[in-house]
């Protein structure tokens, strides 16, 4: 499967049956191989099915398929039972008009629903390219019928709102039902990333960095107190940790195993960041399972003692709990709790409550709602901005991260961050603190590694958190825009330090889009274990290799970047924080003037390069 490349040229489609046969054969095998081992239950790819009709389209950025070709792909295909996409597709095609907001002109043509895409072919007279929308990125759908035509409003996960005017009532209802069914498929292995084969990328060379291992190399250069442990090789200790984690050298794997039993979800304290200048570290974990009996765990205490011993002598330790003191105490009833003061000498606990879960999702929904209302008065806008609390969450997240960073740098202390599960606000704090402290994480490569290491591999449940965006009518279960909050905080940092981040707003926007719906496999699944089960690494392409193609990478770069070896301490006053218009108003207002200005900056840089006759000075580090 790894060498297969689909191309959209005529010859590429010729031996279609062979190519696909290889593909299907493989995937079926995988499923069959998985089933007996009973692993599918824990895999979100719950439905063990073979994708019957699917569309291995090239990148949506270069849609050069004709409608005929794409429809051919959807034709009847021998299947091995189970659900078929074709069963979900009620109608093949319809005539439609697409309205894409106030700026873009409307498109007319033939609308067609395929297994993964909605496509609009401009018809014979149309000269423009095929228009494609990944069905997975549809957040909510609204249909309205009047007379002999209908209107479908699609609200996408990237906050775009599209309107389709379709001829024929039946066609409208059928298309709406098809989109509804296909966009909410929960199976992972039948999702588009498993069929996406962009030109210029090859499977296999995609996941070119393995962050824990790679990061360990850096830590090992700086200190000898830590080691790379493969105790979680088979994910038996912790479901949401990667195979390899960095732990104190003084603690052996058996102790780690006992430690894991004392922490929720097995997330024992591991190294998140080693701050070389002060020789101290940032750790993360989940809450200890002290419970109402105030249980203790000798190995856990030993581990934290070893952390302090490995740092500068006399270094204090701080445990930063992202819940309020009261919430932490209440968690004891359900078996959780906090570290007892007496049990962890040298460690002091701080509580900085951060919002998470449903309130955060509601805040996001309210903000997007407010942004969609163009007619409201000045007072209405300001009061909505206040009432949604989004910027308050940004402020809290940033100031907590600053507190953690300050503990590491100024107090020269070791800081352990955890909340309850340790997969949301914990990661928010540790990753932001690193961005503040570590100049390497502010480079293009470094930031991608940070996201991979501190979010994807650290077990942020993307599959659950990003299942729906702000438009979904469904009652949120596990959805929360924690990752978006992180991106917003990074954007605020970038606004306050416009020269210190190597990447621009474009990368943050791309990450937001891909986290919610993507043709790449990077943000699939909720943990490393699931990704291994679904063979995400071998069967999908990595977003990172997509983003690091020279052409794309160039666009995401911050042209004004100057390496800055110091920590960047942002201001968290409300006067210094701004609404991220580039994201929340991206599709609502015309391109922001600052973007126009940026283009001019690019021009200047280009002319500078021309006069200088060489590449710009910034070089990717690492």
């Amino acid at each position: 499967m790894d060498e297969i490349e689909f191309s959209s040229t005529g010859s590429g489609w010729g031996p279609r049956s062979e190519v696909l046969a290889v593909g299907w054969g493989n995937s079926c095998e995988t499923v069959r191989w998985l089933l007996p081992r009973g692993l599918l239950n824990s895999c979100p790819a719950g439905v063990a099915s073979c994708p019957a009709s699917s569309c291995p389209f090239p990148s949506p950025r270069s849609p050069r398929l004709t409608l005929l070709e794409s429809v051919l792909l959807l034709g009847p295909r021998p299947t091995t039972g189970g659900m078929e996409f074709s069963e979900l597709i009620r109608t093949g095609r319809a005539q439609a008009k697409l309205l894409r907001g106030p700026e873009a002109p409307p498109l007319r043509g033939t609308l067609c629903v395929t297994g993964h895409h909605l496509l609009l072919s401009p018809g014979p007279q149309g000269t423009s390219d095929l228009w494609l929308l990944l069905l997975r990125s549809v957040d909510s759908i609204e249909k309205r019928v009047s007379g002999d035509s209908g209107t479908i409003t699609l609200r996408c996960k990237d906050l775009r709102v599209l309107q389709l005017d379709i001829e024929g009532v039946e066609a409208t209802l059928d298309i709406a039902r098809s989109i509804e069914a296909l966009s909410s498929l929960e199976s992972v292995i039948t999702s588009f990333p498993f069929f996406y084969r962009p030109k210029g990328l090859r499977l296999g060379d995609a996941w070119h960095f393995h962050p824990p291992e790679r990061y360990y190399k850096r830590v090992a250069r700086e200190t000898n107190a830590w080691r790379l442990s493969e105790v979680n090789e088979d994910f038996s200790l912790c479901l949401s940790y990667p195979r390899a984690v960095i732990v104190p050298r003084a603690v052996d794997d058996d102790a780690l195993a006992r430690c894991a039993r004392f922490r929720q979800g097995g997330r024992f304290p591991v190294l998140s960041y080693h701050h070389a200048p002060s020789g101290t570290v940032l750790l993360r974990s989940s809450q200890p399972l002290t419970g109402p009996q105030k249980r203790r765990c000798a190995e856990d205490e030993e581990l934290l003692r070893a952390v302090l011993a490995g740092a500068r002598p006399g270094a204090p330790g701080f445990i930063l709990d992202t819940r309020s003191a009261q919430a932490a105490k209440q968690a004891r009833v359900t078996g959780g709790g906090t570290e007892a003061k007496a049990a962890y000498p040298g460690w002091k606990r701080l509580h900085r409550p951060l919002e998470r879960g449903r309130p955060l999702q509601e805040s996001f929904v309210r903000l997007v709602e407010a942004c969609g209302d163009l007619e409201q008065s000045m007072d209405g806008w300001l009061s909505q901005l206040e009432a949604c609390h989004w910027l308050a969450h940004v402020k809290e997240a940033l100031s907590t991260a600053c507190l953690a960073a300050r503990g590491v740098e100024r107090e020269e202390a070791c800081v352990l961050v955890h909340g309850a599960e340790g997969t949301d606000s914990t990661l928010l704090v540790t990753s932001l603190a690193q961005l503040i402290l570590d100049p390497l994480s502010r480079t293009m490569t470094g930031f991608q590694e940070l996201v991979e290491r501190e979010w994807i591999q650290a077990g942020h449940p993307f599959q659950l958190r990003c299942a729906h965006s702000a438009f979904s009518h469904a009652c949120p279960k596990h959805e929360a825009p924690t990752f978006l909050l992180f991106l917003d905080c990074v954007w605020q940092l970038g606004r306050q330090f416009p020269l210190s981040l190597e990447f621009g707003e474009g990368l943050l926007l791309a990450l937001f889009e891909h986290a919610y719906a993507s043709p790449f496999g990077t943000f699939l699944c909720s943990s490393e274990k699931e990704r291994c089960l679904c063979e995400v690494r071998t069967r999908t392409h990595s977003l990172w290799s997509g983003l690091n193609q020279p052409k794309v990478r160039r666009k995401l770069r911050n042209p004004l970047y100057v390496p800055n070896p110091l920590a960047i301490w942002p201001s968290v006053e409300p006067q210094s924080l701004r609404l991220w218009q580039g994201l929340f108003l991206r599709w609502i207002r015309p391109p922001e003037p600052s973007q126009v200005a940026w283009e001019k900056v690019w021009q200047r840089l280009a002319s500078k390069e021309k006069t200088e006759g060489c590449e710009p000075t910034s070089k990717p580090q690492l």
Partner: protein
Amino acid sequence: MEHIRTTKVEQVKLLDRFSTSNKSLTGTLYLTATHLLFIDSHQKETWILHHHIALVEKLALTTSGCPLVIQCKNFRIVHFIVPRERDCHDIYNSLLQLSKQAKYEDLYAFSYNPKQNDSERLQGWELIDLAEEYKRMGVPNSNWQLSDANREYKICETYPKELYVPRIASKPIIVGSSKFRSKGRFPVLSYYHQNKEAAICRCSQPLSGFSARCLEDEHLLQAISKANPVNRYMYVMDTRPKHRMQSWWATQKDIGRIIVRISSKIWNDEKIRESDEKKRLNAMANRAAGKGYENEDNYSNIRFQFVGIENIHVMRSSLQKLLEVNGTKGLSVSDFYSGLESSGWLRHIKAVMDAAIFLAKAIMVENASVLVHCSDGWDRTSQVCSLGSLLLDSYYRTIKGFMVLIEKDWISFGHKFSERCGHLDGDPKEVSPVFTQFLECVWHLTEQFPQAFEFNEAFLLQIHEHIHSCQFGNFLGNCQKEREELKLKEKTYSLWPFLLDDQKKYLNPLYSYKSPKFAVLEPNTVSFNFKFWRNMYHQFDRTLHPRQSVFNVIMNMDEQNQQLEKDIKDLESKIKQCKNKQTDGILTKELLHSVHPESPTLKTSLCFKEQTLLPVNHALRTIEGSNPADNRYSEYAEEFSKSEPGVVSLEYGVARMTC
């Protein structure tokens, strides 16, 4: 000098405005005839001009000393702690005297001496020539002419001498109209749009009384509409909000009742006309008091339009509320936005902007002339006329053009700078941030159109600084007549040449004057385009600002590019020379030397490298300035030592073991 009792106080503490932990700098406070100066232990100087001081407060004595809070008109707030109460009292009293002068002659401008001779000073005053500006607009022409009616300020004291009026408006008409208008401010030309042949005119409200009309005024308006050969209709914009007129009417109950009685008889049955009637009633009520607006029945070819900009008192208290919110220590995001909302400041800014857009559209789309007025025609009218011209004419978006615009629509047409800025000890109810609002509107435009303006934010801030500083003569006095009496041109200096000399600081590196896109600006006033102007209202609170400036880097880059392009040209010309000489067949030793590695090529590349280091250094400096101790979350960090004393204590951002 007689007010100064103490010139120097040592061991004074300067508190950080936003710190909740009483973090402070210790230094020495000096009091001079013009400035208050604080030099801290790092030799950093803080200068405060006496004229900038809006309010001095002496707070209750504390254990560490006597607190003295000074609020400035440029939104700087400093909080000193003077160790001895007597010193504090002396300084307090001196500042009270020095910040409020009773006479113009005591203002700084009359003693300020930038070491220029008389001819240089006069040249400076002649830099902005309004006659030249009207010529640029295309007047006088066949429809508009210069009127000498106000030559001795006979008709209107607050207008300039040179006024442009329709050619067909005779002197008796002008005189008659001026008698009908409040303060004699009759309709005159403010801006002439050459392509559309439409005009922006300005005046004050008519004193129409209950049923009075003025034929001359009607003639003058007709003349204005006739001066526009394309569209005979003209707009009359009353910049006051309708509801103001209504509430004003409520105070005039008696008159109101009579009118209601009369009108109910007339339109008893016609319920359809009710809303129309109400509008008319208000107008009538205003007219009854001798003030109001034009009766559409009496004027032919006019369309009446209200745009709701509030009066100076509303604006003053709105700004006051805004500053109160922002000055709060430990402000939360919710409090900030609800405070911003309840202050109404951005709503007022939007109203001014909307009015200007209406005006620009009337000219661009409908080709109609517009007459703008408010009550006296020197506050809201100035805002709307100047902002409207700024939208229409790209010249006003250059550095020089913006100076001309301020000179024309604000200074010469009698915006009462001295009263509105409180230059002298006068009526506090006359103070109002009308001009500040104008600058803020311009700033919002620069945010929406970053490439349309030749100047940057620093230019606007500098102008704002000087309308209060009284360092230059431009903004002293309330009208041209007063300025002539003060002999400002002989005794003081003009601000503009000094700003032009420093032009480099105020240039917008993204300015593209050629782009036809920016001929006429069409701003979008959807609510989310209005943001809090942090750099104005927190100009001196450095901790709130972005830590690095993109502008500076782009400026440096531009300079480098220019330098390099120059080098390329030099080298190319050298190569040409070489080739010429080679064709001559002579290759001299000297020429060989010039293509040697030690030629200018290398030198330029070296100089280039040095230059690239500059932004880096700059970045380092600014980032060092942004240490976490400056930020509010540092106070959270005190929790590090709160519950367990003896672990760490924080002071001045340095961790120290205490136990």
